[in-house]
């Protein structure tokens, strides 16, 4: 059982506790990579589209399900949007292994802090914790294993949704309206930019997110679209005053079906493939 002398106590930092107990969470892989002369030949799963949109009642987070290794699809049902705690979510882009590990550490850190301190971190505090983890991960990012997440949540103190974007060095940038990350982020961002309004309701924000993901999947080979054959749909989650809620497959499927109907009838989501009325697989 870990017991520390006063003045030597790692406090509410789970990462520091891991280090003190010989479980360094970030170092070892970078050392291996350095010894191997970099990971240039080892293609990680980098490509993705994840996004977050502020709605009038909170924030909506969405991400596709495809993981790729080079030109191959390695997973069709990968999850890239995770609840960070009851009132926030993190969506990941970048190398899959380190990204999933970072999410796990982040979730543990938030819960650990809450238990040790007896109250949860502020939303800003959570965003800063994630920035610190990305900064600690920089050596691995330099070797070709970057992790670039989006963090979004409902700020209980302010009563509104807030979202944060990051760069590989741990730079933290608060966005007002929407944020995107991953290889399809350019296309998704354009759709969000054109479709965003200040008073988007939660269903409207979900519909806009789905439209953005669809266009990203349409243009970017590394972003997966909805897969009605297998029943795999991009992950959609909404965070409001009642906390984090992920839509189940039936709900996500319905949002995509509405988009598909709109596209088929030449509606606002129209692109080149809309005339064929088909969704990319």
């Amino acid at each position, binding site marked *: *059982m*870990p*017991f520390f002398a006063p003045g030597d106590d790692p406090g509410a930092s*789970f990462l520091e*506790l*891991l280090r003190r*107990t010989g*479980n360094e969470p970030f170092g070892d892989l970078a050392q291996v990579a350095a010894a191997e002369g970099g990971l240039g030949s080892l293609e990680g799963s980098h490509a993705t589209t994840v996004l977050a949109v502020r709605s009038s009642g909170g924030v909506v987070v969405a991400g596709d399900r495809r993981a790729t290794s080079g030109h191959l699809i390695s997973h069709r049902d990968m999850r890239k949007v995770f*609840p960070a705690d*009851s009132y926030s979510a993190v969506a990941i882009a970048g190398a899959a292994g380190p990204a999933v590990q970072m999410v796990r550490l982040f979730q*543990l850190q938030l*819960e*650990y802090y809450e*238990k*040790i301190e*007896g109250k949860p971190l502020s939303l800003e505090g959570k965003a800063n914790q994630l920035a610190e983890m990305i900064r600690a991960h920089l050596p691995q990012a330099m070797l070709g294993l970057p992790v670039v997440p989006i963090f979004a949540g409902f700020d209980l103190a302010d009563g509104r949704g807030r979202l944060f974007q990051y760069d590989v060095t741990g730079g933290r940038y608060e966005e007002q309206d929407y944020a995107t990350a991953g290889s399809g982020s350019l296309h998704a961002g354009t759709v969000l930019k054109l479709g965003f309004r200040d008073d988007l309701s939660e269903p409207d924000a979900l519909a806009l997110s789905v439209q953005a993901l669809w266009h990203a999947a349409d243009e970017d080979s590394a972003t997966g679209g909805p897969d009605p054959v297998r029943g795999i749909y991009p992950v959609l989650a909404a965070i409001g005053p009642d*906390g*984090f*809620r*992920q839509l189940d497959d039936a709900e996500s499927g319905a949002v995509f079906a509405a988009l598909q109907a709109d596209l088929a009838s030449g509606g606002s989501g129209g692109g080149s493939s809309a005339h064929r009325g088909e969704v990319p697989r």
Partner: protein
Amino acid sequence: MSMPGLYVSPEQLMQDRADYARKGIARGRSLVTLEYDGGIALVAENNSATLRKVSEIYDRIAFGGVGRYIEFDQLRVAGVRHAELKGYQYSRSDVEARSLANQYAQMLGQFFTHELKPLEVEIVVVEVGSGDEANQLYRIQYDGTVMDEETYCCIGGDADAVRERVAEGYDPEFDADAAIGLARAALAGPEREITAPDLEVALLESIVPDTSHRRRCFRRLDDAEVEAALGDDAEEPEDSADQEDS
């Protein structure tokens, strides 16, 4: 530690330490933990709203301590660390109260025999069973003695008297409100009354209404919820000894 030329028999030394620890614990208020039909309730008499005696350790595990606050709070933090590290290294389902109770026992035993003074604390570690598993209630004393308790357990200065009162009124069919009511009546005894702000109440709920996102069974009740559970929201009823019937 011992002075040259001054012999103290081991029996005497241990006796003195035990007396010292017991005296420290006796100064504090007691804590009751008892099973109800949907989980485990932890109820402590505590007039501080921020210095807590009852806390969350892990998904299904809670901690309660009495005695010197700073000492049992250190144990609480150590327990959270032990549980989180174990869950990180293995899996969340591998974290259980029994192993935690043994760790606590070792630590308290170590303090009792090797440190200058023993810890003046008594703690409970409880785990709510998942599915068909039974609940686990462990009571650990200042010297590291672990007791595996059934259905309810009491710690603190007045523990024996409180336990008797719980035993008299206990019914395994209790819902959470009735369990909290009985705990309050048992903590207060016949002569005193305890109101909601002087109670610290938390539940480990085995029935999880929303299974998709809730894995943490621990829920702390605020003063209003405690008042509602006790049925004192309107005016204080006269028959406070019969709270468990409400």
